[in-house]
C-alpha cells in the first residue's frame, strides 16, 4: 500500500464483474465457466459466449499461467510515468482464457520477458479499496 495518491485508471465494476473484483480484493482470482458446455471464459459475462447458456458459475483459478505476448511501452499513460518503460502483457491462464496484465518482480526488458515463461498471479493493493491482479515469474 502506498501513501501516494493513485493516479492510474481505476476499474469500476458492473453487475457482471462485481464478483470478480470483490474476489480480487480478497487476493483471489476467479473467472467464470459454463456448466452446460464446461468452457471457462473471461471477461465476465451474464451468458456463456460459446452457447449462450445462462447456467454459468464462478470458480477460482490456479493462479498459474504463461506469457502469451507483450509490448513494452516507452510512452507512459497518465499515471504510469514512474513505471516506463513497462510491459503490457497478455497472460494465458492455465485454464485457457487470456487476460491483459503487467509483469512485476522482474525488470521489463525483452531479454527478461521470454514468451511462454511461467507466471503466477500476485495482487497489488494499490490504494484503499483498490486491488489489481498482476503476474510475476513463477520459479517453481
Amino acid at each position, binding site marked *: 500500500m502506498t501513501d501516494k495518491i493513485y493516479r492510474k485508471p481505476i476499474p469500476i465494476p458492473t453487475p457482471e464483474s462485481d464478483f470478480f473484483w470483490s474476489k480480487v480484493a480478497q487476493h483471489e482470482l476467479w473467472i467464470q465457466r459454463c456448466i452446460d458446455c464446461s468452457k471457462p471464459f473471461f471477461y465476465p459475462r451474464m451468458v456463456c459466449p460459446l452457447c449462450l447458456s445462462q447456467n454459468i458459475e464462478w470458480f477460482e483459478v490456479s493462479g498459474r499461467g504463461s506469457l502469451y505476448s507483450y509490448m*513494452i511501452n516507452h510512452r507512459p499513460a497518465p499515471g504510469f510515468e514512474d513505471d516506463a518503460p513497462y510491459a503490457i502483457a497478455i497472460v494465458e491462464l492455465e485454464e485457457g482464457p487470456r487476460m*491483459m496484465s503487467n509483469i512485476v518482480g522482474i525488470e521489463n526488458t525483452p531479454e527478461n520477458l521470454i514468451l511462454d515463461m511461467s507466471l503466477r498471479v500476485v495482487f497489488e493493493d494499490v490504494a484503499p479499496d483498490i486491488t489489481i491482479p498482476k503476474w510475476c515469474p513463477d520459479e517453481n
Partner: protein
Amino acid sequence: MESLRYKTAIVGASETTELGNIPDKTPFQLHVDASVNAIKDCGIDKKEIDGIATTMNPVALAHYLGITPKWIDNTQVGGTSFLIHVRHAAAAIASGLCDTVLVSMAESGKSRVGQSSNSNFSDSSLEGLRDSSFPGQFESIYGVYGPTTQFGLGVLRYMKETGTTHEQLASVAVAQRKWSNKVPRAMYRDLITIEDVLESRMICYPFHLLECCLVSDGGGALIITRSNRANNFAKDPVYILGTGESAETPIVSQMYDMTSSTAFKISSKKAFEESGLNQSNIDHLMIYDAFAHLPIYGLEDLGFVSRGEAGAFIEQGNTSPGGSLPMNTNGGGLSYTHTGMYGMFAIQESIRQVRGEASNQVPNVEVSFCQGVGGMFMAAASLIFTNSPPD
C-alpha cells in the same frame, strides 16, 4: 441474396484540398471540402445525391450541403467504417433504397481544431476508458495508452510462432517509403533503410517510431451510383466487384487468436466470393497500415501468402515498386497520411490506381483490392474495384 457484383460504381472520388497539417479547418469543414471536391470530380448535380454515409452525424453534413437524403448510414467502427459505408451504399442502391450516395470522412487528427479533448488520439471511443467498459476495467488499468500500446500486442507471439524477424517487420516501412518517395502529397518521402527503422526511437517494443503511423489532418469523399448510369459522369466509372465486412472484438486482449485477424479472413473471403475473382486476379493491393504488422497479418489472412510467409515476401521486395504485388502504393499510413481513421485514404488510392491517375502509378491496374481495419482488430471490411466494364 443477389450478389452486389457490378451493381454499383464509384463515379466521384477526392481527398481534401490540403492534406497533412491543416490548422485552420474543423473536421466539419474538411468534410465539406472533401464532399465538394468529390462532387466536382464527377460533375454531378448535388440534387442527384439522395443518400449520405459518414461517421459524423450524417444529418448535419446533409443539411450543411443542402441535401435531403432518402437513406443515411452512420456506422462507426473505427477506420474501416468508410469501406463498410461503401458496401452498405452498394447494397442500398442495388435494392432501390436510394440512387446515389455520398460517403464522407474527415478528421483534424493532428491539429485537433475545434476539439476540446486533450487526447493524442482522434477517437476516444476506441480507447480503454476510465469507466465500467470492459476495456476500462480490464485494459486501461494496466497502462494502455492508445493504439500504439494495443494494436501490436500479438506481434511478438506472431513472430515466435512464424519465425518472422524484427528486420522483416521493419521492411514494411522501408517498402512503403519506396512508394511514397514519388508521391508529392505524402507526408514522408525520403527513402529509409531497415537500419533507419530499427535505430528510430522505441515507441512500444517491438515497434519503433518508423513502424507506427504518422498523425495528420485531412479527409476524403466518394460518390457511388448505379452501374447503369455510371457512364454519365466526368471520369470512367470504377466498378464495385466485391464487398465484405466483419467484426471481432471491442477489447484487443480478447481476440480469438492474437496472431491473425478473424475479421480480415471473413471480410476478404466474402469479397472474393462476391467478385468471382481470386488472389491471382489482383493487380494492386491496399492493406490499412496503422502499424507495420498490419500488412503482414493482412497478406496472410487475405490469402495472398501462406502463414508465416508475409515478412519474407515484403522483405524480398514483392510489394515494392516493380514487385509482383504492388501494395500500399501511396506510402500508406506509415508514410502518406493517417488522420486516425485511415480507411478512406486506402479507398482513394485504390480508385486512383484503377483510374490510372495515381502519383506513383502501377502499370495496367485493372483490379484493386482494398482491406480496412477498425479499432484494434475490432472490425474489418474489404472492397474489390475494377475499371473493366461489365460484359
